[in-house]
C-alpha cells in the first residue's frame, strides 16, 4: 500500500517527515518496503485489510505518535429507500450487503490533485468517475464499481451465483467462462460483473456514459477468493474483499464518492440510495484481563496506556474489575479473542520495551530423536573417507527420475509443478547426485565423490536414505598413477556405514536395481532377528543413464544407497563394550583354492563359517586371480584364516587339522581344489 504522507496527514497530524513516520509504522507492525519522496510504501500483512487504506494507516500512525485522528473523510449519507431507484436482490449469502446509488455524470479527466494522488499511490488515472471510485478505495478501503446505467437490463441488480456455461467479458477484455461457484452481479438478463473482482466490459463507463449506477458492497471473503482463484484474477478490489472489508463501509463509501463527485463537478446523485443489508451482525465484544495481558507479554502495561492504545485504534473500552470489556470496531475483522487485543496493546506499547527473560526449565529435557546422532555420525564417516556432502533438489524431471525407480513401484508426481524439471519427487538420492557429478565433471573436476542424506519418495511413501556417487581417480598426486573408483569403492563405503550404525551388510549379485550395470551391481542386505532384509544397493550406474545426463562416453560412475530406517532396524542395540585383548597368540594361515569362476566368494565364506572350529576367529579374502597356472573356467581364490583360542596357545597340528577339514568341506560343497596352503605365518 503506497500512502502519500500529505494524504495521510489530512486525518492525523503526524510529523511531516516520511522517514520518521515510516520508522514508527515499521515498529508497530507495518514493514516499509521503501520511501519515495513523500510516499511511504507499506507492506500490509494479510490480517490487516483495514490498513489497505490511507485512513487505516493514519489511524495506526496517530496511535503510534499519540496524536488525534480526524473522523473518516466522507459526506452526508444520502437518504435510503429499500426499494430505491434500481431494485436490488441478493440471492446468495456471498454478498452480505449491497448499496447502490444513481448519479448523472459528465465524463472527463480528473483534477490535477486527484490524478497526482492516484499516481503516487500507483493507480493509473482513467476518467473522473472511475478515478473517484479508486480514490475512495485507497482512502477508506471500500472498493466500488461504477456501471453505465444505460447498459443494465431492467434496470435491476441481482447478486447471484453464475449459471453453468455463462460467460462474461471482463474489463481487461478477456472472455471468461464462469461456473456455479462464482458470485456475479447480474442485471435482469445476464452477468455484468464478477462480484468483488472485476467489472464487465459491456457495462463499462465510457465517454458516452451519462448516468452511472455506483455499487458499494460487502462480499464474503471466501466468495471473492473462490472466484479470484478459479479465474486466476487478482485485483485491488479482490485483495481487499478476500481479506475482509468493513460491513459499515458500503454506505460510507457511497457518501464519500458522491461528495467527491459534487466537489469535482463530475456528477450528481439521482434519487435515494438503495441499501440491502439482510442481517447486520453485532460487532463482537471481547474481555481483556489485566493479569493475562501482563503474563503473556511479560510486562506490566499501565492501565492508562492500555486504554489509550485501544481507544486510539478505534476500540470502545469499558473498564471492569479485572480488566476491560472491549467493543471491537467493525473494520477490525482480525480481532476475535483476548489474545488479539493483547497483540494490539503489545505492538503499540513496543516489543522493544518488554524485558527479555529466559524461561526456566521445568523438567529434564527429553532426549533428541535418534536420527540426529545417526545423521551426524554418517556425515562424519563419509566426509572422513573423502566424500563431499551435497544438497540436491527433492523434485526433478521425470526423465531424470524414471531410470532410478524400483521396478513395479510408482513415482510420486507433483500435481502443480512449477516446471517439468520439478515435476516428480526423487525415488532415489542418486538421481540428483548423478546430476551433480555431471555438473562438476563439465567444470573440469577429475574426481567427484559426493554423498547426501535425505528423503526419497515412491508410491510406498517417504523414506530416509543415504547415497553416495563416485567418479574419477581415487587419489590425485603427481607421484602415483591414478586408479579410478570402481564397484568395490562403493561397496566398501556401504560396509563402513553399516559398521557405523552397528551392523553388517552382506552383498549379493543384484537383480532388482536396473539402473546398475548387470554383473556390477550388488544388493545390500542385513540379517537380523526377522531374517534377511534388503537395505540398499550399490554398483556401477548404467552408462546410458549417465550419458543421458550429459557425461561423455566411457566415464565410469559408481554409486550406492542405503535405507536408513532398515539399516538402523538391523543394528544391534548399543553393542559398545570393548572386548579384552586376547592373552594367547593367533595362528594365521593362507589357503588358495581353485573354484568355478562364477562362484561367489560369499558362498565359500559361508561354507567356511559353517564348518569352522570354535578357534577360527577371522576369515578374509585377499586374492582373486585368473590366468597362468589356473585351469580354464576357474579362478584362484585366497583366504587368510586366523585361529585363536582364549585359553591356550594353539598347536600347528591342531590348526593343520582344522585347515584340512575346511578344505575337504569346501571341496565337497563347491568342487574346489586346493592350490596351496601356506605354512605357519608369523603370529599376529
Amino acid at each position, binding site marked *: 500500500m503506497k500512502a502519500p504522507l500529505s494524504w495521510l496527514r489530512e486525518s492525523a497530524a503526524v510529523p511531516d517527515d516520511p522517514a520518521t513516520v515510516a520508522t514508527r509504522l515499521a515498529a508497530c507492525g507495518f514493514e516499509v518496503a521503501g520511501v519515495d519522496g513523500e510516499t511511504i510504501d507499506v507492506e500490509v500483512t494479510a490480517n490487516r485489510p483495514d490498513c489497505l487504506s490511507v485512513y487505516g494507516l493514519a489511524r495506526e500512525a496517530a496511535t503510534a505518535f499519540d496524536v488525534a485522528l480526524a473522523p473518516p473523510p466522507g459526506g452526508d449519507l444520502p437518504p435510503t429507500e429499500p426499494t430505491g431507484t434500481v431494485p436490488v436482490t441478493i440471492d446468495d449469502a456471498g454478498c452480505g450487503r449491497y448499496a447502490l446509488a444513481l448519479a448523472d455524470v459528465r465524463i472527463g479527466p480528473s483534477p490535477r490533485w486527484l490524478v497526482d494522488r492516484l499516481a503516487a499511490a500507483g493507480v493509473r488515472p482513467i476518467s473522473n468517475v472511475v478515478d473517484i471510485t479508486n480514490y475512495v478505495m485507497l482512502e477508506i478501503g471500500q472498493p466500488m464499481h461504477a456501471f453505465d446505467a444505460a447498459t443494465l437490463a431492467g434496470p435491476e441488480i441481482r447478486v447471484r451465483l453464475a449459471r453453468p456455461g455463462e460467460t462474461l467479458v471482463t474489463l481487461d477484455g478477456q472472455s471468461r467462462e464462469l461456473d456455479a461457484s462464482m458470485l456475479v452481479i447480474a442485471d435482469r438478463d445476464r452477468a455484468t460483473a464478477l462480484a468483488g473482482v472485476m467489472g464487465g466490459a459491456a457495462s463499462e463507463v465510457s465517454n458516452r456514459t451519462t448516468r452511472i449506477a455506483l455499487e458499494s458492497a460487502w462480499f464474503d471473503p471466501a466468495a471473492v477468493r473462490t472466484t479470484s482463484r478459479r479465474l486466476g484474477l487478482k485485483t485491488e478490489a479482490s485483495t481487499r474483499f478476500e481479506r475482509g472489508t468493513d460491513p459499515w463501509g458500503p454506505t460510507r463509501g457511497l457518501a464519500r464518492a458522491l461528495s467527491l463527485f459534487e466537489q469535482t463537478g463530475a456528477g450528481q446523485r439521482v434519487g435515494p440510495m438503495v441499501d440491502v443489508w439482510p442481517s447486520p451482525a453485532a460487532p463482537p465484544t471481547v474481555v481483556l484481563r489485566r493479569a493475562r495481558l501482563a503474563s503473556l507479554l511479560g510486562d506490566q502495561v499501565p492501565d492508562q496506556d492500555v486504554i489509550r492504545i485501544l481507544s486510539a485504534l478505534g476500540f470502545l473500552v469499558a473498564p471492569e474489575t479485572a480488566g476491560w470489556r472491549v467493543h471491537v470496531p467493525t473494520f477490525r475483522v482480525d480481532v476475535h479473542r483476548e489474545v488479539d487485543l493483547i497483540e494490539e496493546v503489545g505492538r503499540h506499547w513496543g*516489543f522493544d520495551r518488554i524485558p527479555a527473560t529466559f524461561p526456566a526449565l521445568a523438567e529434564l529435557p527429553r532426549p533428541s530423536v535418534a536420527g540426529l546422532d545417526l545423521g551426524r555420525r554418517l556425515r562424519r564417516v563419509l566426509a572422513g573417507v573423502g566424500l563431499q556432502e551435497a544438497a540436491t533438489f527433492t523434485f526433478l524431471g521425470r526423465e531424470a527420475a524414471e531410470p532410478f525407480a524400483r521396478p513395479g513401484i510408482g513415482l510420486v508426481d507433483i500435481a502443480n509443478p512449477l516446471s517439468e524439471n520439478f515435476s516428480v519427487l526423487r525415488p532415489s538420492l542418486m538421481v540428483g547426485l548423478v546430476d551433480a557429478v555431471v555438473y562438476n565433471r563439465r567444470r573440469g573436476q577429475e574426481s567427484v565423490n559426493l554423498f547426501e542424506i535425505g528423503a526419497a519418495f515412491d508410491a510406498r511413501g517417504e523414506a530416509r536414505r543415504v547415497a553416495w556417487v563416485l567418479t574419477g581417480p581415487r587419489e590425485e598426486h603427481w607421484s602415483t598413477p591414478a586408479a579410478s573408483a570402481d564397484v568395490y569403492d562403493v561397496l566398501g563405503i556401504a560396509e563402513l556405514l553399516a559398521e557405523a550404525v552397528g551392523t553388517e551388510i552382506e552383498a549379493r549379485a543384484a537383480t532388482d536395481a536396473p539402473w546398475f550395470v548387470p554383473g556390477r551391481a550388488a544388493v545390500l542386505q542385513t540379517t537380523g532377528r526377522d531374517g534377511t532384509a534388503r537395505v540398499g544397493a550399490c554398483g556401477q550406474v548404467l552408462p546410458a543413464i549417465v550419458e543421458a545426463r550429459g557425461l561423455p562416453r566411457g566415464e565410469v560412475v559408481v554409486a550406492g544407497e542405503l535405507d536408513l530406517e532398515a539399516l538402523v532396524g538391523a543394528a544391534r542395540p548399543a553393542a559398545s563394550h570393548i572386548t579384552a585383548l586376547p592373552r594367547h597368540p593367533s595362528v594365521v594361515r593362507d589357503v588358495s583354492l581353485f573354484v568355478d569362476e562364477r562362484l561367489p566368494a560369499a558362498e565359500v565364506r559361508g561354507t567356511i563359517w559353517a564348518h569352522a572350529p570354535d578357534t577360527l576367529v577371522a576369515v578374509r579374502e585377499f586374492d582373486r586371480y585368473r590366468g597362468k597356472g589356473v585351469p580354464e573356467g576357474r579362478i584362484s581364490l585366497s583366504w587368510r584364516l586366523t585361529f585363536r583360542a582364549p585359553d591356550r596357545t594353539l598347536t600347528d597340528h591342531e590348526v593343520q587339522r582344522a585347515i584340512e577339514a575346511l578344505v575337504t568341506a569346501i571341496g565337497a560343497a563347491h568342487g574346489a581344489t586346493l592350490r596351496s596352503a601356506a605354512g605357519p605365518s608369523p603370529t599376529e
Partner: protein
Amino acid sequence: MSPDPIAALRDDFTRALEAARTPAEVRALRDRFLGRKNGHVTTLLKTLGALPADERRTLGQQTNELKRDIEARLTAREADVGRDLPPPGSTDVTLPGRRRATGRRHPLTLVQERVEEIFLGLGFQVIEGPEIEDDWHNFEALNMPPEHPARDMQDTLYLSAPLPAADGGRPATLLRTHTSGMQIRYMQANPPPVRVIAPGRVYRRDSVDATHTPMFSQVEGLVVGEGISLGDLKGTLNAFASRFFHAAVRTRFRPSFFPYTEPSAELDVECQGCSGRGCPLCKQSGWMEVLGCGMVHPAVFEAVGYDAERWTGFAFGVGIERLAIRLYGVDDIRMFYENDLRFLGQMPL
C-alpha cells in the same frame, strides 16, 4: 689472521660433510679437520699461543666448542652413511604433499548443526518429521482453515495422489510448506512442557532466482510451559542471536503476522556486512531479517488438546539458507544447491 677463522672453518666443515657419502669419506674428513698433526682445528689451536692472554682465552674456548661440534656431527654422519640413507637433495620437500582425500560437510549442514548445538545448549531437544504432510497438520491445526489466503495454490506444492503416512495417520497430500506442522505432531504425542526444535526441508511453489528456491530448510522451535511470555521469547532468541553471530549483536523485534502465533514478530539483527551502518546487503537499513516468531495462538493449543488457558508458549522458524547467506556472505541462494565442488570445497573441515 682472517676476520673470523672459526666461522670460516665451521662453514668449510659443513660443506665437506654434506659432500661425504661413504664411511671412508667421513673418516678422511675427520683426519682433515681433527687430525693430530695437520688437522685444521689442531693447527688453529696451535696458532693461539702467539696471541695476548685474554684473546687467547676467548678464542681457545670457541675453538674447543667447534672441535666438539665437528666431533659430534662426524659421529652422527658416520652412523648415517653406514645406514645407506638417501643423499641430501634426493627428496624435494617443496613438492606438494600427498593429501588423504577429505570431504566436507555441506554449508547448510554446518549452519543447521550450529543452530542445533545452540538450542541443545539451551535445554531444547531435536525432533524430526515427514516432508510430505496432510492438510490438517500443515494448515488447519495451525489456525489456517480452508480459504485462508496463506493456502494459495501459488504457495503450496500438492501431490497428484495421496501417499501413505509413515505413522499410519492421515495420508499425505502435499509437500510441507514449513516445519510448523512439527509443532502439531509433537504436541499431539507429548504433554507439556515442551522445548523442542525441528529442522528440515520445506517446499514452496517459488521460481528459482537469486533469493528463491522452491525448496529450502528451516528450523522450527517451540516452547510451551506455564507462564511463558513474550519476554521469554525475546530472551531465548536474543540468546540464540548472540551465540550464532556474536555476543554483542544488537537485535530488534518487530510486530508481524503469522496465523499460528499471536502476537507475532520478526527478529532483525544488525547487518553483519556493515555492523548496522547501512550497506547494499541490508538495503541501507542496517538490519537484517533473521526469523519469524510469536506466542503460540490459542487456536493451535485447542487443535492439539492443550489447555490454552493454563499453557502458553512461543514458536519460531529460522531459515537455514538465510542464516547461511548472512554467515558466509553468499549473495545467491542457488549456490547451495548447485553442488559445485569449488564452492563446497571452501567449507571448513
